[in-house]
C-alpha cells in the first residue's frame, strides 16, 4: 500500500522512529554480545567448566548456547548453499556428492564427536575457541545435510523455462544465483532451517557435555546445565532449564521464523496469488522502519553494483564458457580418491582389530535397535494417523490443536528425558521402555504434522462423494483417507525413521543421578564407545548403523515414495 492518509502520517512517523530505535539497540546489543563472545573464545582453554545450577546463571548459559547453535546454523547455511550449488551445477560430481550426502545424513552426531573434537583441540590447543569450535561443528553435523539436500533439489526443480530465460538473456553466473537460484531455494531452505535448528536443540545436551576417552568436556550452556541438573537429580533445576529453553524456542519462532516465513511468500512459484496472506506484524514493522529500509537499500545497491561489474566484465571477454580444465578435474579426482583410499585402508586396519564376537554383538545390537525404531514408528502411527486425520478434517479442532501440537513439538525431547526417565524409574520401569518413549517424543510430530497436511489436502469433493454414496467408515478410510494421506504419511515416516535412528544414541544411554543408565542397542554401543574412547568399536557401529539406514532408505522408503508419487498423487 503506497497510499498514506494524512491523519495517520504523524503516528506512523513516531512509530517508525521507535522501531528504528529498537533496531539500533538490537544491533548494539548484538555487537556487545559478539565482543564478549570473542573475549571468552580467546581466553585460555577450560574444557570442563563448573556449571552453576542457580537461576541467575541461566541467561548467560542461554546466550552461549544460542550463540553456538546459530554459529553452527550459519556455517550450515553457507555449506548447504555451496554444496548444493556445486552438486546441482557440476554433473560430473553430482551423483557422488548426492550419494555422499545420503550416507552423511545417516551418521549419528556422536560418531563425529571424537574426530571433530580432537581435530579442533589440536588446532587451538591453548584457547577456548578450539573446544567451542568443536562443539559448534558437532551441532553443524546434525544440521547441515537436510539443508544441503533441500538447496540442491530446489535448484534442480527450477522450472525449465525460467532457467532458459536466464540463459537466453545472458545472465552472468552471479546474476543467475541472485535472481534465480537463491530465490528458488529460499522456501525450502527456510523450512529445513527450522527443522535443523530444532535438531540442534535436540542434540544440544550431547554436544555441550560429553566424555571423550579419559577426558571430560563441559561447556557453559543450557545443555550442560540440564545434564548437570539431571546427574544431580535436581528436578527443580531441570524444570528451570527446560523453561528457559522453551522461552528461547518460542521467541526464536516468533521473532525469526514467522517473519521470515511471511517474507518468503514472495518466493513461491505459484503463478496465481493465493488469498491466504501470511502476514506478520514483525515483518510489517521492519518494512515500515526507515533504518531497516536504509540497510536493505544499501545491501541491494551493493549487490547490484557487483552484478553490473560482473556483467560488464563478462560482456568484455565474450570467451567460451570457462569449463574447469580437465587437468584440474583429474588432479582433484586423484587427490580425493587417494585420500578416500587411504582412510578406507586405515579404517580397515582399525576394524581388523575388532574381535569376531564383537562383530556379532554389534549386529545383534543393530537388530534390537531396528526393532525399537520400528516399534516406535508403529506406536507413533497408531495415534497420530487417527488424530491427524481428525484434526485435518475439522477446521475447528485444527484451530485449537495445531498450535498446541506445535508448542509440544518444539520442546526438545532430550530436555524432557531426565524427567520422563525419573518418572519411569520411580514406577519400576527401565531404560528399555524409556528409550522407546524418548524416540517417540522426538519423532511422532513429523508423522502427525504430515498426516494433518495430508488430510487437509484431500479435496472436499472426494469427501462429499463419500457422503453422497453413503460409504461406511471402513470404506471411507480404505478408499479416501488412507490413499489421500499416503504420500504425506510416507514423508512423515521417512523423517521419523531417520530421526529415531539418530535419537537412539541419546535414548539408549543416559547419565542420571550420577550413574549411567543403558539398554542393549546400537545407539548405546555408539555412545559407550565414544565415552570410552574405543574408536574401533565406534567406527564399526557407525558403519553398521549408516549401512542399515541407507539400506532401509533404498529398499523400503524409496519404493514407497515412488508408489506415492505415481499412484497416490492428488494434484496430477
Amino acid at each position, binding site marked *: 500500500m503506497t497510499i498514506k492518509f494524512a491523519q495517520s502520517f504523524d503516528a506512523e512517523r513516531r512509530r517508525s522512529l521507535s522501531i528504528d530505535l529498537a533496531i539500533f539497540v538490537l544491533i548494539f546489543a548484538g555487537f556487545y554480545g559478539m565482543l564478549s563472545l570473542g573475549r571468552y573464545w580467546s581466553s585460555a582453554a577450560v574444557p570442563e567448566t563448573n556449571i552453576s545450577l542457580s537461576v541467575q546463571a541461566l541467561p548467560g548459559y542461554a546466550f552461549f548456547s544460542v550463540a553456538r547453535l546459530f554459529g553452527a546454523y550459519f556455517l550450515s547455511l553457507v555449506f548447504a548453499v555451496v554444496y548444493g550449488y556445486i552438486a546441482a551445477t557440476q554433473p560430473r560430481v553430482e551423483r557422488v556428492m548426492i550419494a555422499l550426502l545420503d550416507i552423511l545424513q545417516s551418521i549419528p552426531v556422536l560418531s563425529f564427536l571424537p574426530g571433530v573434537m580432537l581435530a579442533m583441540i589440536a588446532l587451538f590447543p591453548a584457547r577456548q575457541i578450539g573446544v567451542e569450535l568443536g562443539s559448534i561443528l558437532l551441532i553443524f553435523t546434525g544440521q547441515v545435510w537436510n539443508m544441503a539436500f533441500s538447496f540442491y533439489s530446489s535448484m534442480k526443480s527450477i*522450472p525449465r*523455462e*525460467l532457467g*532458459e*530465460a536466464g*540463459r*537466453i*538473456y*545472458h*545472465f*552472468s553466473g552471479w*546474476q543467475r544465483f541472485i*535472481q*534465480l537460484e537463491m*530465490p528458488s531455494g529460499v522456501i525450502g531452505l527456510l523450512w529445513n532451517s527450522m527443522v535443523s535448528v530444532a535438531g540442534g536443540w535436540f542434540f544440544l545436551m550431547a554436544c555441550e557435555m560429553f566424555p571423550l576417552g579419559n577426558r571430560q568436556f563441559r561447556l557453559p550452556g543450557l545443555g550442560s546445565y540440564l545434564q548437570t541438573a539431571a546427574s544431580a537429580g535436581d528436578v527443580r533445576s531441570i524444570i528451570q532449564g527446560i523453561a528457559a529453553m522453551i522461552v528461547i524456542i518460542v521467541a526464536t519462532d516468533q521473532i525469526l521464523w514467522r517473519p521470515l516465513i511471511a517474507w518468503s511468500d*514472495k*518466493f*513461491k*512459484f*505459484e*503463478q*496465481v*496469488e493465493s488469498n491466504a496472506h501470511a502476514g506478520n506484524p514483525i515483518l510489517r514493522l521492519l518494512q515500515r522502519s526507515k533504518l531497516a529500509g536504509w540497510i536493505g537499500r544499501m545491501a541491494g545497491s551493493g549487490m*547490484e553494483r557487483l*552484478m*553490473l*561489474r560482473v*556483467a*560488464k566484465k563478462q*560482456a568484455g571477454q565474450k570467451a*567460451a564458457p570457462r569449463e574447469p580444465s580437465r587437468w584440474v578435474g583429474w588432479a582433484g579426482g586423484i587427490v580425493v580418491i587417494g585420500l578416500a583410499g587411504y582412510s578406507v585402508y586405515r579404517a580397515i586396519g582399525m576394524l581388523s582389530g575388532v574381535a569376531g564376537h564383537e562383530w556379532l554383538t554389534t549386529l545383534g545390537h543393530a537388530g534390537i535397535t531396528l526393532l525399537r525404531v520400528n516399534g516406535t514408528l508403529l506406536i507413533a502411527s497408531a495415534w497420530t494417523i487417527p488424530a491427524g486425520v481428525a484434526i485435518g478434517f475439522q477446521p475447528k479442532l485444527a484451530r485449537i490443536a495445531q498450535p498446541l501440537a506445535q508448542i509440544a513439538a518444539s520442546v526438545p525431547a532430550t530436555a524432557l528425558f531426565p524427567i520422563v526417565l525419573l518418572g519411569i524409574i520411580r514406577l519400576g520401569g527401565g531404560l528399555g521402555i524409556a528409550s522407546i518413549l524418548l524416540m517417540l517424543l522426538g519423532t511422532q510430530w513429523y508423522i502427525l504434522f504430515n498426516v494433518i497436511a495430508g488430510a487437509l489436502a484431500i479435496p472436499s469433493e472426494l469427501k462429499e462423494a463419500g457422503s453422497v454414496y453413503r460409504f461406511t467408515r471402513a470404506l471411507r478410510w480404505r478408499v479416501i483417507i488412507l490413499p489421500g494421506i499416503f504420500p504425506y504419511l510416507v514423508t512423515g515416516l521417512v523423517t521419523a525413521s531417520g530421526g529415531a535412528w539418530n535419537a537412539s544414541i541419546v535414548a539408549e544411554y543416559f547419565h542420571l543421578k550420577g550413574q549411567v543408565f543403558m539398554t542393549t542397542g546400537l545407539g548405546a554401543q555408539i555412545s559407550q564407545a565414544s565415552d570410552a574412547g574405543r574408536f574401533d568399536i565406534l567406527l564399526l557401529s557407525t558403519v553398521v548403523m549408516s549401512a542399515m539406514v541407507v539400506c532401509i532408505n533404498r529398499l523400503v522408503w524409496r519404493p514407497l515414495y515412488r508408489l506415492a508419487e505415481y499412484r497416490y498423487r492428488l494434484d496430477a
Partner: protein
Amino acid sequence: MQQQEPLIEAVGIEKFYESPGENRIQVIAPLDLAIRPGQIVALLGPSGSGKSTLLRMLTGLSQPSAGKILRNGIEKKEAGNLAIVFQSFALFPWLTVQENVEAPLEARGVDKAERAERSRRALDVVGLDGFEGAYPKELSGGMKQRVGFARALVVEPEVLFMDEPFSALDVLTAENLRNQVTELWSDKKLPTQAIFIVTHNIEEAVLLADRIIVLGRNPGRIRTDFQVELAQPRDRKSPPFVGYVDFIYRVLTQPDAEPGKLPSAVPKREVHQMLPHVRPGGIAGLLELLPDPGQHADLYQLADDLGLELDELLPVVEAAALLGFLTVKEGDVDMTALGHRFANADILHQKVFFREAAVQHVILIDRIRRALEAKSDHRVPDEFFHDFLDEHFSEDETKRQLETAILWGRYSELFDYDAAQKRFFLTEPDSPAAHA
C-alpha cells in the same frame, strides 16, 4: 525480400540420442532452415515432432548433434541477441514487473537510469505502463504474457522467438494479444527484425505468419515450407484463408502422404491488380456518354467522339471494367447493368454504387479498408501499404497506386489520407462529410 542475408541459418542440423547397444534415437532428421529479416515464420507440427527442440537449437539453448548454425553468416554455438517469449511466461515471481523487464539489461551491464528508461518504453509498447511495481502473480495471464513480451522487446532482439506464446491463455485474451502483435509488427513498432513462432494452432499460424513450416514426426522433419500470400490483417472467413487452413490440416492428418501442392483456391499472388490512374469523376463521365447496355461502342470511335487520344481513354475504360461497370471485348465496350444504374444515378447514389464496386473488385481499396477497420484507432501509416505494394511495383508506381487509391477512397468516402502524418484513416461513409 528473399535475397536478404539470413539472420540465422541452420545447415543440416539434427538431433539424436545415442542409446547403448541399439540404434540411436533420432529426434530430428537433418534439415536446413533460414530465418530472414522482415518475416514472421511459424513452425507448426504435431506434438512429438520436435518443434521445441528445433527452437532450442536455433536459439542456442541446446546444441545440435550434427550440422551447424550460422548466425549472421558466421558459425557460432551460442546465440547472440535473441529473445524468447515462453508458453509459461517464465517470469521471475520474486521480481516486480519492472525488475523482470530490466533483468536482461542488467545482464548486459546497463546502468540504472538507462534501464528504467528502456523498461518504461518497452512496457509502454505492450500497454502495461502503471504496472511497474506489481508482482507477476498479481497479474492476469494476458498481462503476464505482456510482461514476457516487454522483457523480450527490451533487448531489441535480432529475432524474437515465441514458444506457444498464446496457448496458456484463454481464447479471447489470446486473440486480443495476437491482434496486437500483428498490429505492432505491421506498424514497425516491434524492435526486432524477424519473428519465429512455434505453435500447434493452425489458424494462429495462418493469421500471423508470412511463412509456415510444417514439421512431421518420427523423426522430426520438414514436411512443407511455404509463403502465406495474404495481406494483413487477415480474415478468418475469407476463402484463401480457409484454403490455407484446410491445406495444413490435410498435411497434418496425413502424416505419410506427400504434402502436395498448395490448392489452387489459394492464389499464388493475390495483389497483381494494377489500379489505372484515373479520377472517379472521369469514370462517371465516360459511363454517362456510353450507349445503353447491349449496344456495343467501338473504342476508337469513342476516343474520336470524345476528342481523346486512345491511351488517354484506355485507363478510364480499364478502371470502369475493373469496377464491373463495363466489359471490353475485342475493341468493343459494352456497359453492364450496374454501369447503367451508376450512370443514371444522382451523385450521392453514384458514391454508393462506386463504394460497393470498389470494395468488391479493387483489392487495394478493400485491403486498406480492412486494415483500417481492424485497427483499434482506425489509423494505419502508409508505409504499411508501401510494403506489400513494393513486392509488385516499382517505387514510383507504388506511390502512384496509393495516390489513386486515395482519390478513390475519398470519392467513395471509405477512407481518407492525412498527408502531414502520412496516415490513412477511416471516414464515416454515412455522414455527408466533405471530400476532395
